[in-house]
């Protein structure tokens, strides 16, 4: 299975739906250690993405780029620029390509994550979305290297994102608004780490639904 523009559209529609469903939960997490807007910001932004994508045509890179600029101009807050950057960078990385295989997808996601890190300067353990992204992409790389199919590889990425998300629970935040709380930020999940997990879970879901797998080697070997 290869990833193309319509796969990405499916991904974003699923993500938008899931984030909409998680809106109150994410906002509640942000109320505990931030300013109670993450769910609202993200849901608003991804709803706008779906609307924009519905109205516009576009191939793989166009879809990713429009996603990035739309997030950048509709989400607001720290996560808006970071997620926006992620997609703009990823779009640049796949410019001209019509489809991606699992390894190419992983490479594009890495470039997106670099965008997040370059702007936000957060490291793993700082209790941010990076705590979900970094282990997820590591797991994805591992799965791809070991020959897993796309769906399985994205499934391990989502599982690693989930673990990464959960790893933020005891952490003391060092970046973003939650860092103002110092020790009081411990004991709460980071809202951005949760939204990143939801995004990656949607990616795995869409891949699983996309049907017959290429590269069953890892699964069978």
């Amino acid at each position, binding site marked *: 299975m290869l990833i193309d523009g319509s796969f990405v559209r499916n991904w974003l529609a699923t993500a938008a739906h899931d984030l909409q469903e998680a809106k109150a939960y994410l906002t509640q997490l942000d109320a505990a250690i931030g300013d*109670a807007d993450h769910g609202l910001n993200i849901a608003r932004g991804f709803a706008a993405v779906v609307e924009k994508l519905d109205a516009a045509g576009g191939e793989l890179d166009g879809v990713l780029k429009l996603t990035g*600029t739309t997030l950048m*101009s509709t989400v*607001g807050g720290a996560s*808006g620029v970071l997620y926006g*950057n992620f997609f703009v960078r990823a779009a640049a990385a796949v410019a001209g390509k019509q489809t991606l295989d699992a390894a190419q997808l992983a490479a594009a996601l890495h470039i997106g994550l670099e965008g997040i890190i370059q702007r936000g300067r957060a490291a793993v353990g700082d209790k941010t979305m990076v705590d979900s992204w970094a282990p997820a992409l590591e797991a994805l790389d591992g799965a791809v290297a070991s020959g897993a199919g796309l769906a399985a590889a994205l499934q391990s990425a989502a599982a690693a994102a989930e673990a990464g998300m959960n790893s933020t629970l005891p952490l003391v935040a*060092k970046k973003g608004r939650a860092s103002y*709380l110092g020790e009081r930020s411990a004991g709460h999940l980071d809202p951005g780490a949760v939204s990143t997990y939801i995004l990656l879970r949607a990616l795995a879901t869409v891949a699983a639904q996309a049907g017959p797998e290429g590269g069953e080697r890892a699964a069978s070997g």
Partner: protein
Amino acid sequence: MKKLINGVERIVYEQLEGLALAHPQLLRVAFDPHYIVRSRPPAANKVAVISGGGSGHEPLHSGFVGYGMLDGACPGAVFTSPTPDQIVACVQAVPRAAGVLLIVKNYTGDVLSFEMAAELLHMEGVTLRTVVVDDDVAVKDSLYTAGRRGVGATLMVEKIAGGAAEAGCGLDQVAELARRTNLGSRSMGLALSSCTVPAVGAPTFALAADEIEIGIGIHGEPGQKRLPCVTLDEMTALLAGAILDDGPYARVEREWSPQQGEWVECTLVNPPFAAGDRVIALVNGMGGTPLSELYAAYRSLVYFCRGRDIQIVRNLVGPYVTALEMAGFSITLTRVDDEMLHFWDAPVHTPALRWRM
């Protein structure tokens, strides 16, 4: 949740429309993306002073657009940083030939958005400088946090930089004055009640009938610690004491270098306050506290400062940097020299600050 609103989605839009309707001589509002600029454009060779941030802090920033202060303001959603495209559009709507100063409150979202906007504007040939305001001593260090938040000092920075720009100072001098004002400023606040983000519909944190929250920000974030309610004099001593006892505060700040066309890191230090300092004092209401109580707080502050030989040479008492309908107050002290005082005193005519015109 009871508020004077028509619906959660329309809040910022309608509030901005009301502002524009109330002050057509001073400002106009553009929508999608939202920004506010003066209705009488200043001289083409004036440095433009632009700021912005989440909504819900009014009159900051929209109420400071006008003669002698801001050229433009970019309001985000409630408590949410503005987006880079808003900032770009706002700057493109004002005369910018003499350069642009972007005044940014130190929150990750605001900083990221303004940085993104600065890079885009630079690519379009705009000469600009950035100043980050970070005056909230409730945040102790910058090594383990996103750094101190920008709160009350934003008003001082916007007024003094705006006054200098109006007087014809060049971009470097305006930026230097803004930075000096920030480095002379410290703030701290407390809340008697939380606030309710409209889209959430419930208070962000809960305080018992006899509790106060010390070291709050301006977004309903929980503060440093929770205490039983004390007297006003004790509250003032807590806030003003933290401000006056704060040691030198050093951090590495990214500022845009128009010469190099890139970000440069510079170490900036707030020297501590010292006996004999002359200060501007802001006793700031958080939105739900009546003016009468703020004047009583100012009285406490005057006595506290006298005890420390800090000389209040100007003051401002009222709700200026708010958090929706939160009850509580913050104190900002800004050490001033003659030049800063000169631009503080300079004529200003905005919806929220007006003097000598």
